[in-house]
């Protein structure tokens, strides 16, 4: 069973083709990392998969469903959730409420304006457990906009996984973090992706090689390699394109 299937996906902005015919199959339960130099189109690829931008041509399937013409929330309903490279949270709501917003849809609350959230004990408990896992319990009632950068990144991941999606896209989860913070987030990602499909864009090679089952290398909108970490490490083409001539 495949979680994500890309077939000859292309995306152009104006005359520039950013994604140039990507084919990729990510089976369920895999931890998959996408690496590549700046401007390779990694974030664009995420934006296409999650429905933020429409594709120019090709086909994207999430959990076996064609996503053509679907809005981001509809793709989310197929069981896919994503985080953002530039932190995207709800700054004027508390940390707890941020997490709860991530939970609501999947717990069947929809657009209800008659049920009071305060009386939803299970929901509250679930949100609090997640806060505990994110190490944010002490910051529960603080406005998310006032958190430190690292805390906001944790919250970002929290909102992403709260809904219980089985396909999770993380866009540079450790960007801008210190060593200890990176270690903590790497551990966090490992636990939360247990039994799920994880796709992540990441620059920190320690995290990539530490977590990923399969690594895909994207250069100028094209996949030049997709293999196990060990094979990627030894791949000459990758070293040339990605790590530069001197490394080769």
């Amino acid at each position, binding site marked *: 069973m495949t979680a994500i299937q890309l077939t000859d996906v292309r995306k152009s902005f104006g005359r520039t083709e950013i994604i140039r015919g990507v084919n990729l199959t990510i089976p369920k339960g895999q931890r998959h990392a996408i690496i590549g130099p700046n401007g390779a189109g990694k974030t664009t690829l995420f934006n296409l998969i999650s429905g933020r931008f429409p594709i120019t041509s090709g086909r994207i399937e999430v959990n076996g469903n064609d996503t053509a013409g679907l809005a981001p929330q509809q793709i989310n309903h197929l069981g896919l959730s994503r985080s953002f490279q530039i932190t995207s949270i709800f700054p004027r709501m508390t940390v707890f409420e941020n997490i709860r*917003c991530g939970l609501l849809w999947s717990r069947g609350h929809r657009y209800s*304006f008659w*049920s009071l959230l305060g009386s939803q004990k299970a929901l509250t408990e679930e949100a609090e457990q997640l806060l505990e896992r994110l190490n944010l319990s002490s910051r529960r009632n603080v406005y998310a906009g006032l958190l430190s950068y690292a805390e906001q990144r944790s919250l970002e991941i929290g909102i992403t996984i709260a809904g219980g999606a089985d396909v999770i896209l993380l866009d540079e989860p450790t960007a801008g973090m210190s060593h200890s913070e990176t270690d903590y987030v790497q551990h966090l990602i490992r636990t939360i992706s247990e039994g799920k499909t994880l796709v992540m864009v990441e620059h920190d090679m320690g995290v990539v090689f530490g977590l990923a089952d399969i690594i895909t290398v994207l250069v100028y909108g094209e996949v030049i390699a997709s293999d196990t970490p060990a094979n990627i490490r030894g791949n000459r083409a990758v070293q040339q394109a990605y790590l530069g001539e001197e490394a080769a």
Partner: protein
Amino acid sequence: MSTQTSSAAAMSAPSFLRRHGLWFFMLALMLVLPWVFYDHEKGRHSGFAITLLSEMALMSIFALSYNMLMGQAGLLSFGHAVLFGVGAYFVAHTLNFIRASGLPIPVELMPLVGGIGGLVCGVLTGYVATKQRATAFAMITMGIGELLTAAALMFMTFFGGEGGITTDRVVDTSIFGIPYTRPIQVYYLIVAWAMIAALLMFLQTQTPLGRMANASRDNYERTQFVGYDPKVIRYWQFILAGFFAGIAGGMYCLVYEIVTFDTLAAVKSANALLATYIGGAVGFFGPIMGAVLVVGMQSGVSLHTSAWLLYLGVVFIAMVIYAPGGLLGLFANHIPIARMGRLGELVVPYARILVPGLMMTLGFVLFVELTTHQTINAAQGKKFSLLGFAPDPGGTMVWLSAIVAMIGGALWVRHEGRFFMAKWNALIEDAKARGIVA
């Protein structure tokens, strides 16, 4: 924004009172106030006071419904009065229909009828308006507001043209046998509905829709990626706001027994905006404070000066620049300092800024009143007076003192303002260091 504590706190009587005390206080205040203005000599209520209180109550509901869009969902509407006005027209027609057909629909339900009118209008106009957000939403609502106001003047059957629709609330269909001949009877009906509507709006903020409206205000794109369609959120929120605005419109119709195109017009929408912003869109109770203030100025200050809208405008601009959180925000800013128990340290800075502030305000008011007198009031043959004084409006001294007080006061306020801000920032820094403010 209130955040309920998660731990299922035992609902003991004192904590229940503490948490909801404000509601009981408001209710008690509304019940008692008419008797404060009771005219014992004539043995009846002051008509002016009752009308003023009714207006405050219904405008509070209108402003609260406006805040469902502005504060909760981040939607700036310039045509909110459309929902209010249509509700009012609905009630006027319903009352006339009851009179004509003898159908026993209780008068007590009229605000609800207005709510249904607002709801219907919200379903129709909201469908168009909520396709967009931010500036585009603001402009669509402005366009719809202008359209309906103009249409109201054109179509006689529903809107009654310029004369509007007159009606009579005394239709004898009360469940409680109240005739509603006296304004005080209508006032208590309005208090009841105002409490119900306010409570429902408050509860709505704690529902999934209410919270997701907050979320779409903060970051509409992210709401999509947690599974919600921000357009649907906006649409539902708009319809509900329409319902409550319609309730306010229904109350309006009961109080005045005439509904004209003014109830739909841009000025009415602007009033809701001003009240909400001045009171504070950031918290639930802000719009009520704003509505009371705006109505007070409208009814009270306008008796004394024709420039009240100017004063309101100046207050509004000052709020936009210096206090984007409104009155409520100003109060809330003091909470961390109060928690440290150091509110007393602000007394001196406040006193020091109050003196020049008063001087500036008085100078400004004197200047404005003198000018208004020269151009408008003198032509109407009115005599000039301010706060009991009646200087010669043609004299040089009085003009000069106004200008000196205004400009001198402003410069002095600037000077004291720096001192105040220094003290304020020091206190806030301290609060941060102690972890009281994040």
